[in-house]
């Protein structure tokens, strides 16, 4: 009698499935491109003769939150959740002695790990690059504050994943998540400076993280409630749809 696979085994196989996948280029792109742009700005532009850590981090964080992470994680999550349908592996995946929800949870955990790796790599590179040029002293307080910020960003972006997962599962295609990602980035730019910025889930990571032209009051509670609701609704819809018949 064969052993029933544990959740960790299923997560491990989800990582194996991603080996040599070109879509993984999203991660270094999201992690390093903002860092390199911000670094080159501070290194080359005479308007910024010294690295002021607050400005340096804030610029990078804004670029990640507003432009890179939403689109690239939509693409990555769209791929992970829709590929089983698109590559017709769903027929074998759902005939394993493993529940469908366990597969969903594994994919979600894989996304959390990938987002964490991306943001942590981005943070480390940003710090290291900053240390190579003329800078103000990097205190432990600054380091801890931005570590916490990046961890919070991981959670906020992760909260947006179940909605992407639902779209992928419902449509059995990567196209709707891409459309959603592009639309969210565009709407983000419009909504960011309106009172609705803590209601629109995709602008919340920017609003609740350090950002330029910040307003005097940010409704953190509303932002967190909206993100949690998005996560819960996305999860419920995904689970409901993953249980549907596979044709």
């Amino acid at each position, binding site marked *: 009698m*064969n052993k029933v696979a544990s959740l960790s085994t299923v997560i*491990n196989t989800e990582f194996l499935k991603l080996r040599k996948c070109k879509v993984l280029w999203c991660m270094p792109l999201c992690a390093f491109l903002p860092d390199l742009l911000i670094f080159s700005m501070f290194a080359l532009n005479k308007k910024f003769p010294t690295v002021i850590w607050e400005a340096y981090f804030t610029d990078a964080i804004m670029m990640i939150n507003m432009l890179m992470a939403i689109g690239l994680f939509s693409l990555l999550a769209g791929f992970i959740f829709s590929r089983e349908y698109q*590559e017709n592996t769903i*027929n074998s995946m759902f005939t394993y002695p493993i529940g469908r929800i366990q597969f969903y949870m594994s994919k979600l955990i894989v996304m959390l790990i990938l987002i964490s790796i991306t943001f942590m790599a981005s943070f480390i590179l940003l710090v290291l690059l900053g240390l190579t040029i003329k800078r103000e002293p990097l205190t432990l307080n600054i380091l801890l504050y931005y570590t916490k910020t990046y961890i919070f960003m991981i959670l906020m972006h992760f909260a947006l994943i179940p909605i992407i997962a639902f779209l992928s599962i419902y449509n059995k295609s990567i196209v709707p998540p891409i459309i959603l990602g592009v639309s969210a980035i565009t709407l983000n730019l419009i909504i960011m400076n309106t009172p609705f910025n803590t209601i629109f889930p995709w602008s919340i990571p920017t609003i609740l993280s350090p950002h330029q032209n910040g307003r005097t009051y940010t409704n953190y509670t509303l932002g967190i409630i909206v993100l949690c609701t998005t996560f819960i609704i996305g999860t419920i819809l995904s689970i409901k749809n993953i249980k549907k018949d596979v*044709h």
Partner: protein
Amino acid sequence: MMACILKTYNLTKKYKDHKAVDDVNITIEKGDIYGFLGLNGAGKTTTMRMIMGLIKPTNGNIELFGEKLSEDKKHFFSRVGSIIEFPGFYENLTAVENLDIHRKLMGVLNKDCIEQSLETAGILDAANRKTKEFSLGMKQRLGIARALLHNPEFLVLDEPTNGLDPIGIKEIRQLILDLSQKRHITVLISSHILSEIQQLATKVGIIHKGKLLKEINSETLKKKNRHYIELKVNNDRETVFMLEQKLNITDYIISEPGVIKIYEKLTETSNINKILIQNNVEVKEISLLRDSLEDYFIKLVGDDINE
């Protein structure tokens, strides 16, 4: 009594007003090679999908290894290998990597089974090639390797020879026979190709428009596979009289007016012909033929097709 591997009770799948599968009762016993025969769209794949838990029946139950199948009871599937429709693979990975994922998810600890199953399916040469480079036939073979990897007791194969060349079809047929005879694996195989089922199955279920029209066991199947002499004559009654009186032939049927099938004295074609002519029976045609499942299948579903 033979152990029952699969039993379905009034299995039904309804899509709006259309019944894709209608009250299907299948019984597969240990060691059977159950041929599931039907035209395209007859309901074979839908039935197999319900058996493998991919779609929920609208009505009815499925019993696998003597236990009722339900959403929370998926442990049975570690004892089942399957190919449902066209087998899909992670195209960025090699054949071995794909099978390794399957091995882990099936909870098989021994890694040697990967090489063994690739060898059994005749695809060991391509073990380290990415599956995106595979032809349709190679993917089908890899699907078979995957279905066999965890040493299942029951194989569910939905048209497994799709995309294979004639030699490949023959090899897979032989493989299925070997698995059944040497490893005592029970097989449910669907096809719309009658000859394929006829050469493999010990039991055949004919499905048409969602309904299981007939289940034929191996004994009946053998009978449906008999050789006979077909006589086309101008007068049935007179011919039959001559056959009985002059040639002592009793195992015959009048299949249609003017056509008689004789199931004995198959080597005496010329003698039969001679005697009938000597007795003034006009023989239009005489030939040695073989009953086939195809005739039976067409007879069963033919009226519907012609309508």
